[in-house]
């Protein structure tokens, strides 16, 4: 089986995990910028992080035959200080031309505050000005419904954002419909305790079809599983889905969306 891991935070994972991904059939891993579990004390911390994403991680992945791509932003968990966020966003243009950068992400909301909204709008505007793909994080748990609605309002009201170039991630049963109905791509994150289990993700695929949907592990420093995508593929096969259906979900769909970036090349 071949697949693309479209959302993984490999800076938090061991080198053994790169090997496990490769052995499971992963051919490319895509890493959005995120919260490291603690707040960075200065924009310089983000400068170093962006270098790690664009220089160090691609080299680490290449040792196992894996292509590594990334997305850049200041994540919503560190977006409450708008002045700080502005300084970090100002760093992004100098990294956008790096060969493994796919776009701006994972931007979005965390607690649905006004400051988070302002930083989200700055990111969306940057993506539009630089003609970049967008990857959006939707909030956790009780905040997801409201946050998804607010995010959709921001994106739909921006005159230069094209829905087919935006993926809205971490959808669940109560948000997937509104995202797809608005023309955006939707990502399902497979987590052991929060977000979707493999069984629920396959339920969503059966109810909504596979068009504009992808699966990811979003493995990071928390409770997460870097092999969640192949496990969901096994779940699909367990239910009798054909190999070409499974391949379309775990390889074809992410390839189709990500290939809108000229930097996404698998060969």
């Amino acid at each position: 089986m071949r697949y693309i891991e479209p959302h993984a935070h490999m800076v938090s994972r061991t080198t053994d995990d790169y090997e496990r991904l490769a052995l499971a059939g992963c051919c490319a891993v895509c890493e959005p910028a995120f919260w490291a579990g603690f707040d960075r004390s200065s924009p310089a911390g983000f400068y170093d992080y962006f270098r790690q994403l664009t220089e160090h991680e691609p080299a680490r992945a290449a040792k196992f035959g894996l292509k590594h791509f990334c997305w850049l932003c200041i994540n919503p968990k560190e977006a409450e200080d708008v002045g700080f966020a502005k300084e970090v966003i100002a760093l992004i243009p100098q990294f956008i031309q790096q060969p493994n950068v796919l776009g701006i992400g994972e931007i979005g909301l965390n607690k649905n505050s006004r400051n988070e909204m302002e930083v989200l709008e700055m990111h969306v505007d940057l993506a539009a000005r630089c003609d970049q793909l967008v990857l959006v994080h939707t909030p956790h748990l009780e905040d997801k419904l409201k946050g998804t609605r607010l995010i959709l309002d921001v994106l739909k009201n921006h005159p230069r954002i094209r829905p087919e170039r935006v993926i809205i991630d971490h959808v669940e049963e109560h948000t997937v419909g509104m995202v797809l109905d608005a023309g955006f791509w939707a990502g399902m994150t497979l987590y052991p305790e929060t977000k979707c289990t493999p069984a629920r993700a396959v339920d969503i695929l059966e109810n909504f079809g596979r068009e504009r949907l992808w699966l990811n592990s979003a493995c990071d420093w928390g409770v997460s599983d870097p092999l969640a995508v192949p496990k969901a593929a096994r779940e699909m096969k367990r239910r009798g889905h054909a190999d070409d259906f499974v391949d379309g979900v775990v390889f074809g769909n992410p390839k189709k969306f990500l290939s809108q970036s000229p930097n996404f090349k698998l060969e």
Partner: protein
Amino acid sequence: MNRRQVLDLYFLEARSKLIDLAAFLDRVERAPGEDDYRLQALRAAFAELSGPAKSRAEAVLLALSDPTTEPIAQAPGKGATGAWPGKK
């Protein structure tokens, strides 16, 4: 898959989760102290299990969600608890 095949594949897992949930309720109720909004929200969400077919998972998620629509003035922190503490 037909219904029999779904039951063959998932019944024992669902049974196990149901017993775990029952044991959780027993555990939390024999502990000293008061309920909080999380347990109240969970009890309210139980009612959705007998709702219309095909949308029970969505209904449970909605029952545990913040239903308001306006951004809040300031983020109170970073974490989420899994249930909305406000009043609908």
